[in-house]
């Protein structure tokens, strides 16, 4: 391990499980366990997977001006949601570029809990503080908070059994305070895999106890601890964008196909004018999903060019093997004329042209 790398409260558990650890943005994180990425991926699709995502950032926005502050920051209608809702939103710059994507938990008009990307934690907290009204306190709890995702078709019943039957009835994209294996948690019916399940936030000092109980419950069900390798392949297969790959401050949510999380008609927020203008003018490029048939035996990856007549016209932002669907899958920014589902595009895979097809929707659909 490089000196100075950060460890989550579950680091010892990962070592004991034989995880392969890598430097992920300064965190010493499990990329896979001995089962390997493909088995971990399939465990989430077929049973249940446990993910340590404690490297992610968490904060509270509190006070009489919390609602107004969140309304100014978020593109989605976070502030007007009923208490108990968990809402995916973008944060935008005044020019419409994406600062981050995150999930806000609305506890009340005076209190919001937010989970942000690990790689953006410092930037986001600064962004919140820079734009918070005087009546809104921004409290960074990242260093005290662990986060464990439990995902897969067996996740809900498993967590419900560990919580005295208190969480199975929660609708998707809601949260509640609960106890799981005797540990107080904020349980969100959310995730980043395309599967049903929960993300459980708890105090650092409770994390090992919660993790151990989850591992003990999951293994007999065919479940596995899952590293960042499968976290990435799962989110890609469900066409969930990743900040730093598919999203950044040079692309807008509209270009990224996240217009559903941008409420242009609701009220003013940072970036709204630019997004309204872009909507009126038309998009310069669009993020699309593509597949490469298995017979071509090629995988397009982040940074490869979409080419037309020998010229680059777009760029692959994420790509990899389709673990459940076969062939290769990915996402790319392309000009709108190439964005229609069914369009054939060419991707330069290290000097060889891969024929790819633009497809709509998720690559893998739950229950298929």
């Amino acid at each position: 391990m490089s000196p100075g790398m950060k460890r989550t409260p579950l680091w010892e558990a990962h070592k004991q499980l034989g995880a392969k650890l890598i430097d992920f943005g300064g965190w010493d994180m499990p990329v896979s366990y001995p089962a390997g990425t493909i088995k971990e991926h399939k465990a989430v699709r077929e049973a249940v997977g446990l993910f340590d995502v404690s490297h992610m950032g968490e904060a509270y926005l509190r006070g009489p001006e919390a609602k107004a502050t969140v309304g100014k920051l978020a593109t989605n209608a976070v502030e007007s949601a009923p208490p108990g809702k968990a809402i995916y939103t973008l944060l935008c710059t005044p020019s419409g570029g994406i600062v981050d994507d995150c999930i806000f938990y609305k506890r009340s008009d005076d209190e919001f809990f937010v989970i942000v990307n690990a790689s953006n934690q410092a930037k986001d907290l600064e962004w919140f503080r820079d734009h918070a009204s005087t009546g809104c306190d921004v409290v960074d709890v990242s260093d005290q908070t662990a986060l464990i995702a439990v995902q897969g078709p067996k996740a809900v019943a498993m967590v419900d059994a560990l919580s005295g039957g208190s969480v199975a009835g929660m609708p998707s994209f809601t949260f509640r305070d609960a106890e799981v294996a005797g540990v107080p948690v904020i349980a969100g019916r959310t995730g980043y895999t395309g599967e049903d399940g929960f993300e459980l936030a708890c105090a650092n000092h409770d994390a090992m106890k919660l993790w151990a109980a989850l591992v003990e419950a999951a293994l007999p069900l065919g479940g596995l601890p899952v590293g960042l390798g499968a976290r990435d392949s799962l989110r890609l297969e469900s066409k969930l964008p990743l900040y730093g790959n598919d999203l950044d401050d040079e692309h807008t949510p509209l270009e990224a196909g996240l217009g559903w999380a941008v409420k242009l008609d609701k009220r003013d927020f940072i970036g709204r004018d630019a997004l309204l203008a872009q909507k009126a003018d038309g998009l310069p490029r669009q993020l699309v999903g593509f597949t490469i048939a298995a017979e071509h035996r090629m995988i397009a990856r982040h940074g490869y060019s979409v080419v037309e007549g020998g010229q680059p016209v777009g760029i692959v932002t994420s790509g990899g093997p389709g673990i459940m669907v076969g062939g290769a899958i990915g996402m790319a920014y392309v000009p709108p004329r190439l964005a229609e589902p069914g369009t054939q595009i060419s991707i330069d895979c290290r000097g060889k042209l891969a024929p790819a097809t633009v497809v709509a929707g998720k690559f893998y659909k739950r229950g298929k």
Partner: protein
Amino acid sequence: MSTFPTDLRYTNDHEWLRAQGANWRVGITQFAVDQLGDITLVDLPNVGDLITKGQRFGTIESVKSVSDLYAPVSGRVVAINTSLKDGPEQVNSDPYGNGWMIEIEAADKSEIAELMASDAYTKHVAAQ
């Protein structure tokens, strides 16, 4: 630290070679496999192709990355492991056996002599 079979020769690029009659069978080491993770595609040359020491002769795609395979010695490809086309996971499960990749008829035997024995390769890996 994994141990490396003593009957093999090794390259800096984490490939192994085993005498197979007059030819040399080539694969990648356990260390390389551990670095790559689950392998999903192995792209190999054709039988009869000439390869040049240090030049790319194929690629390996794992779930997370793509890597080049470099020719350990110059020569002619006399066999490829066609079972990797539909079974790339054999490289993970049996890197020194069923996960072999190609067989080379070496053009210059002295290039074989320059390869590392397992103890030297063990030190090479320890320094990574």
